[in-house]
């Protein structure tokens, strides 16, 4: 989807988050020469076009006690992937689910499913439930719990954008 220069300016202006003031859209507009109404309309349009997945509070799950974070992967025949994924995302505890390429011989898995939880034993039980619910028993599987977190921040897109401001902006992409 094509982004205009105006879209990029607006994305860059909210990169590190909205200012916590009574009229944040007015302040954002003042930075980039837009009226408050233009900022609100611009954000509405970015949401409607699907450039923005959501606008709101971005939580740091680790700090809220979500420390049992498991990436479960399966090697699923390509023609079965969509059906299996549809069953996985129907489970309330599956937070992310996507298909990525295999890289043989090192990495034979193509279906990824993330579960963020507080308790490892509970997450392990949920992984078994997900495997059964999606009909993936008996297929090659690996469970990769996270161990150490070296870095976690919002994603940066604007470095190198023509209309970039002085600071790189950070906006996280959902579960990339």
């Amino acid at each position, binding site marked *: 989807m094509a*982004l205009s220069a105006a879209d990029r300016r607006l994305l860059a202006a909210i990169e590190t988050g909205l200012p916590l003031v009574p009229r944040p859209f007015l302040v954002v507009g003042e930075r980039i020469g837009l009226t408050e109404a233009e900022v609100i309309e611009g954000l509405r349009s970015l949401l409607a076009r699907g450039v923005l997945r959501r606008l709101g509070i971005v939580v740091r799950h680790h700090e809220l006690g979500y420390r049992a974070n498991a990436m479960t992967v399966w090697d699923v025949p390509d023609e079965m992937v969509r059906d299996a994924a549809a069953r996985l995302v129907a489970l309330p505890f599956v937070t992310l689910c996507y298909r990525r390429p295999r*890289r043989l011989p090192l990495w034979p898995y193509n279906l990824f499913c993330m579960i963020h939880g507080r308790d490892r034993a509970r997450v392990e039980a949920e992984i078994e439930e997900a495997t059964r619910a999606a009909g993936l028993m008996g297929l090659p599987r690996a469970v990769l*719990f*996270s161990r150490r977190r070296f*870095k976690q921040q919002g994603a*940066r897109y604007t470095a190198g*954008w023509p209309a970039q401001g002085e600071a790189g902006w950070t906006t996280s992409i*959902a579960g*990339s």
Partner: protein
Amino acid sequence: MATNLSGTEQRLVDEFQRDLPLVERPFAAVAERLGIDEATVLAMLGRLLADGVISRVGAVVEPHAAGWSTLAAMAVPDWALPQIADFVSSFPEVNHNYEREHHLNLWFVVTAPSPERVRQVLATIEYRTGVPVLDLPLEEAFRLDLGFRLQWH
């Protein structure tokens, strides 16, 4: 610990992960829904931000709508992991970087304005560390949303 949130703070964090009201005074609209006042909402958000419970009030961009990203993995010997992880984290394009329980033990996300720049970062990491880097870009998303309902205990 950050889980010591008041009931109102829990509702604020849980209920406004999406659909921040697009009105002139969004925090006043949030306050009204929570039965408190605007100044209290702003003070709460400031504290949650300072405590690191939230990273911002702002936008989450759709993957590949505004640039390119990939998930990358490396099999790093344990003795070299801290140094290599620090080197990987030193790239501004790397936003998540985790150790995971697997032979492929270092997993990170690279995000940049273009696929070329993403590939350049991966190539640089591979060249400088001598460890192969697997490039696992998103091919199809079935659910990609970390704005899920929170469980408080």
